């Protein structure tokens, strides 16, 4: 099924359809992650792949046009030959891989037993993924949040902060498509029904990340997708009045600083950078609060980055 979808994407010259198939592909792969026990990953892929990135692609396509040129024969044969060769080599290499699902494969040895056996005592939350993400590998996650932040700065430099023609200073554009979206009663009613529960759900995912699947990354994307939905139905101007891009641009930095600030505070309290155990007298409480705060930081950064990127891209297409 996954392969069939990809083959269709390869064949398509109409990019609009290709992007839609891409969203479907993401949803399928998130089902696969679910089957393979990776609930947190499935969650993220469903929110990001089927939601945010599809919207970004569509916004970009609205600017650059919907069809790609037919490929010439010469352009397809050489890549096809190369890809086949590399594929054969890689499949040959898989014969040395440990078989799927074996419990004593090298990947299950090294640090994994410690995460599984000791994380409840050392960190606390029942969701091991959250413990590893926020505590054991806190530096990594700090870096990842930094990458998201840097990509945001890149988009900001390339496209502007969505303030080129700020919604506040400009009357609503005579954009027929936006108007017609608002007039479609089914879309509007469904959106009205969905927006509030999904916002609540985003907050639930944010604060419940230690116990069930979820956390700052997922919550941020879900939160952003609600705002994107609102902007799609009611037009970008009301959405920008709700979240003025100029102010929103500070939030990614704020989230990242919040994360770093927890690290600094734990250093002042006598621990190492991002050693939450030092935050409180009881290391368990310290870990708990530390993880909550840095997840909040991640959530703010991711949500603000996604909303900002959407505004920047869609401002260009108006």
């Amino acid at each position, binding site marked *: 099924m*996954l392969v069939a979808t990809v083959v269709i994407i390869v064949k398509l010259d109409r990019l609009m359809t290709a992007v839609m198939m891409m969203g479907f592909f993401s949803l399928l792969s998130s089902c696969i992650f679910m089957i393979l*026990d990776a609930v947190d990953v499935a969650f993220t892929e469903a929110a990001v792949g089927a939601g945010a990135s599809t919207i970004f692609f569509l916004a970009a396509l609205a600017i650059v046009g919907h069809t790609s040129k037919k490929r010439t024969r010469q*352009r397809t044969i050489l890549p096809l030959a*190369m890809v086949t060769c590399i594929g054969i080599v890689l499949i040959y290499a898989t014969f040395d891989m440990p078989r*799927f699902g074996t419990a004593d494969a090298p990947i299950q040895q090294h640090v994994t037993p410690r995460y599984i056996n000791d994380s409840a005592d050392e960190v606390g939350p029942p969701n091991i993924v959250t413990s590893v*993400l926020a505590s054991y*590998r806190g530096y990594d996650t700090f870096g990842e949040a930094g990458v998201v932040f840097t990509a945001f700065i890149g988009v900001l430099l390339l496209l502007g902060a969505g303030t080129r023609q700020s919604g506040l200073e400009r009357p609503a554009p005579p954009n027929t498509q936006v108007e017609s979206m608002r007039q479609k009663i089914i879309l509007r009613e469904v959106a009205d029904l969905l927006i509030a529960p999904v916002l609540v759900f985003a907050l639930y995912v944010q604060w419940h990340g230690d116990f069930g699947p979820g956390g700052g990354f997922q919550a941020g994307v879900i939160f952003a997708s609600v705002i994107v939905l609102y902007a799609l139905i009611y037009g970008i101007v009301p959405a920008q009045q709700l979240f003025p891009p100029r102010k929103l641009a500070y939030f990614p930095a704020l989230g990242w600083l919040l994360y770093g600030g927890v690290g600094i505070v734990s250093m002042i309290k006598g621990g190492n950078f991002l050693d939450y155990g030092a935050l409180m007298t009881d290391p368990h409480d310290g870990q708990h609060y530390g993880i909550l705060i840095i997840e909040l930081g991640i959530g703010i950064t991711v949500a603000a980055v996604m909303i900002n990127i959407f505004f920047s891209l869609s401002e260009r297409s108006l």
Partner: protein
Amino acid sequence: MISGLFNYWIVVILMMAGLYIVMSSGHLVKKIIGLNIFQTSVFIFFISMGKVSGGTAPILKDGFTLYSNPLTHVLILTAIVVGVATTALGLAISVRIYEAYGTVEEDEIAELDADNRQNETSVTTVAYNKK
């Protein structure tokens, strides 16, 4: 034997399909779609490696002892979000290229570039001849 490697083969096929799109398509946005497929195949690869048969999702609960590898989940979870941020960056670059060139087809951009360079050299030769 074969069922033990099936996931990895699917991953290889997806990965090659992504690579093929990147190489064969001239449209920059389609190239980014190809990169996304490549990326997703790597995600599936990692998650497949972390799976333990008979294991369950890595959320501690009484009554379960066997969990799949949480480390790969953490790596991929953050990689997905970073991936969408970098995708947005790539799209932003192609939007700017479109604004500068009026096209996002690779060969047309190369032609325009070649034309520009010729114009520049002809301008400089004219200036040189005037001297």
